[in-house]
């Protein structure tokens, strides 16, 4: 299967692919795309924090009103002028009666919301919010802490508690994540590994789809341009398929290595210093594992995509029939994203060692939790077994498919091809 003819085909594939504009652009652009996405997200967040609001805080007693006035005036969003707050004191009955007259103001642009703090809030911390958009979490997040502080202060006033004690009572709980792993010291964990898990997921997904559609197109093109029979007069279909897949596989793994290069540099050199919250806890061995795991998976998927390309003779038919393959990539992609919340969950664990899914889910999971060696090994074994299991079938369909033209074959016909003596 592997000989000088296969090598010639690999060489041609590499010349065509690696030197193509699409490949160079894609390889260079993806890291920028990432940085762009992160900047965009930061922009969205800052845009959100700049959102303006005009609020009216009405409380049941003078005591609350003046405390609120004092507390909110030092709030950053109020100081910056984004939030404009007016204050009033009103009993519950009077407030309820005047609510209808405020309705128009609330419906218009003038007033974002109305906060009513009844006297009872000092004991049960229940306050009301009236607005067109009554579930404005970003607004609540900004006010919650201050409101809590006001209520707690009043609640404990005169109860002989020191400021220190009150300040303790008003403080929110702060979770500090520590990663427990077998051999290493216990280290505080930032968000770096979560980001890494996402980056692995995204890159693997992107590369599988990109390389897959590329080889599918390439096979289709050979069929359409009628080169395939000329090629078959020199090489057999197995050599052709092997050459094309290895050519595309080498291209894909090189691309992935280029994308992971910054990561490798961060781990193995001290040239880059990451912010404390974004330190990455991963070993060089794990990065190479990602590459190995990906290479096996990539070869498997390239085989499948090449097969789909061989079955059809035009882009549309092929595109519309490749959804089962897309599912094999998309489902693991979503699993890999969802395990960010709970990487030890059953689904994540099974998927990280399941045929096809292991390719994307294992690296994503590996970045989040410590994985026992047997699971690493099992995932590789499963991936290799999947590849070995699929190739004889894919090769047979490919062999028949590349010489077929004319009407779009049905799936049962394709199954029949498996029985042809070719």
């Amino acid at each position, binding site marked *: 299967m592997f000989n000088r003819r296969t090598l010639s085909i690999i060489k*041609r594939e590499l010349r065509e692919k690696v030197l193509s504009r699409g490949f160079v652009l894609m390889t260079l652009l993806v890291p920028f795309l990432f940085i762009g996405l992160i900047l965009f997200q930061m922009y969205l967040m800052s845009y959100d924090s700049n959102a303006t609001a005009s609020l009216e805080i009405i409380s049941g007693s003078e005591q609350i009103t003046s405390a609120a006035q004092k507390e909110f005036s030092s709030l950053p969003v109020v100081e910056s002028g984004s939030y404009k707050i007016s204050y009033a004191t009103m009993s519950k009955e009077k407030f309820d009666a005047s609510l209808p007259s405020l309705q128009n103001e609330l419906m218009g642009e003038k007033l974002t919301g109305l906060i009513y703090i009844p006297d009872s809030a000092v004991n049960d911390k229940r306050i009301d919010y009236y607005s067109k958009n009554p579930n404005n979490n970003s607004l609540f997040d900004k006010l919650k802490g201050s409101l809590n502080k006001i209520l707690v202060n009043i609640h404990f006033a005169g109860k002989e508690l020191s400021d220190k004690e009150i300040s303790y009572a008003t403080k929110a709980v702060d979770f500090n994540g520590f990663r427990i792993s077998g051999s290493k010291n216990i280290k505080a964990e930032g968000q770096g590994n979560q980001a890494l898990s996402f980056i692995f997921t995204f890159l693997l997904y992107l590369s599988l789809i990109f390389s897959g559609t590329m080889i599918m197109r390439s096979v289709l093109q050979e069929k359409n341009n009628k080169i395939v029979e000329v090629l078959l007069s*020199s090489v057999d279909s197995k050599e052709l398929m092997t050459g094309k897949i290895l050519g595309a596989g080498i291209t894909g793994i090189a691309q992935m290595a280029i994308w992971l290069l910054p990561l490798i540099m961060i781990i193995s050199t001290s040239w880059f210093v990451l912010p404390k919250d974004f330190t990455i806890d991963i070993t060089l061995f794990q990065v190479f594992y990602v590459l190995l795991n990906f290479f096996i998976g990539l070869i498997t998927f390239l085989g499948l995509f090449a097969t789909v390309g061989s079955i059809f003779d035009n882009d549309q038919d092929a595109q519309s029939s490749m959804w089962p393959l897309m599912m094999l990539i998309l489902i693991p992609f979503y699993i890999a994203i969802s395990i960010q919340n709970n990487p030890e969950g059953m689904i994540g664990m099974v998927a990280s060692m399941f045929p096809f899914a292991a390719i994307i889910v294992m690296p994503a999971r590996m970045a989040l939790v410590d994985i026992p060696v047997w699971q690493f090994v099992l995932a590789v074994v499963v991936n290799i077994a999947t590849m070995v299991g699929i190739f004889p079938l894919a090769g047979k369909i490919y062999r028949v498919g590349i010489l*077929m033209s004319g009407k779009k074959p049905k799936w049962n016909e394709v199954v029949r091809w498996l029985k042809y003596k070719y």
Partner: protein
Amino acid sequence: MFALEVRNLSKSFGSLKAVDDVSFAVPEGSVFGLIGRNGAGKTTTIRMMMNIYLPDSGEVILKGSKIGQEFKNMVGYLPEERGLYKKMSVLETLLFFAELKGKTGKSIERKANEYLERFELSDRKNAKVEDLSKGNQQKVQFITTIIHDPEFIILDEPFSGLDPINTNLLKEIILDLKKQGKVIIFSTHLMDFAERMCDHITMIDKGKVILNGSMTEIKSKYAQQNVSINYRGDISFLNGNPIIEKIEDYGNSTGIKVKQPDQVQELLKALVENNITITKFNANEISLQEIFVGLAGGEIEGASKLEVKNV
């Protein structure tokens, strides 16, 4: 001495028997024609000879042993469905196909340049294939077929889609290769081309061999009772004449088959006696087309119902 022997090849696709027990032998140094209408099984037979299809049964023998990769290396094959990588340059294309046959290095590059020179493509050698005219792309395709100096040249419907200039060019190449002692095998449904170029033919129809042998033998065998005439007048009086076996109108000539070889003179006499103006009377002459129609029936050009294209 046979260069290549095809023994009892059969191949079915589902319920369709595309090739049914086909055997023939290709003599050394010959131009060999595999003849039949579209869908007769020519391409399937050739694909089995090229080891692109595995036969259901039968074998192809090269110098005493079954064909394999070494045969592929010594063949230049021009399939009916042919093409090139559009984005590759002309020279790259030639070197790539030579490399697949195991030929690399300076000598093959020199050879590529020689061929480009001969086919007047030297100035385009760094152009992309897609930027060439269709005729020039065909020339590049010819060169890829013969650049590795093959012992066998197998051409499947070589003249389909060629413009007149390239048709002549290809004929020259074939004759040139013949002079060099190469074995040329080509399939065609064009009887007159086959007739002019082949020394040996095998005629197949509906997957079966219906005629096999050297062109001169076949012709002398079938020609004895045949007369080809051009005339003015009405020859309907011949219908029902006891010496006539059948009359076929081929458009530009009429073929008449008599029952016994010695009845040809009687036929001429009858025509003259009935005041038919004879402009051409060719006894013992038969075209391949006539032989084919006589054996297979129906028109050669018409598409067969058993069309098996590219299976």
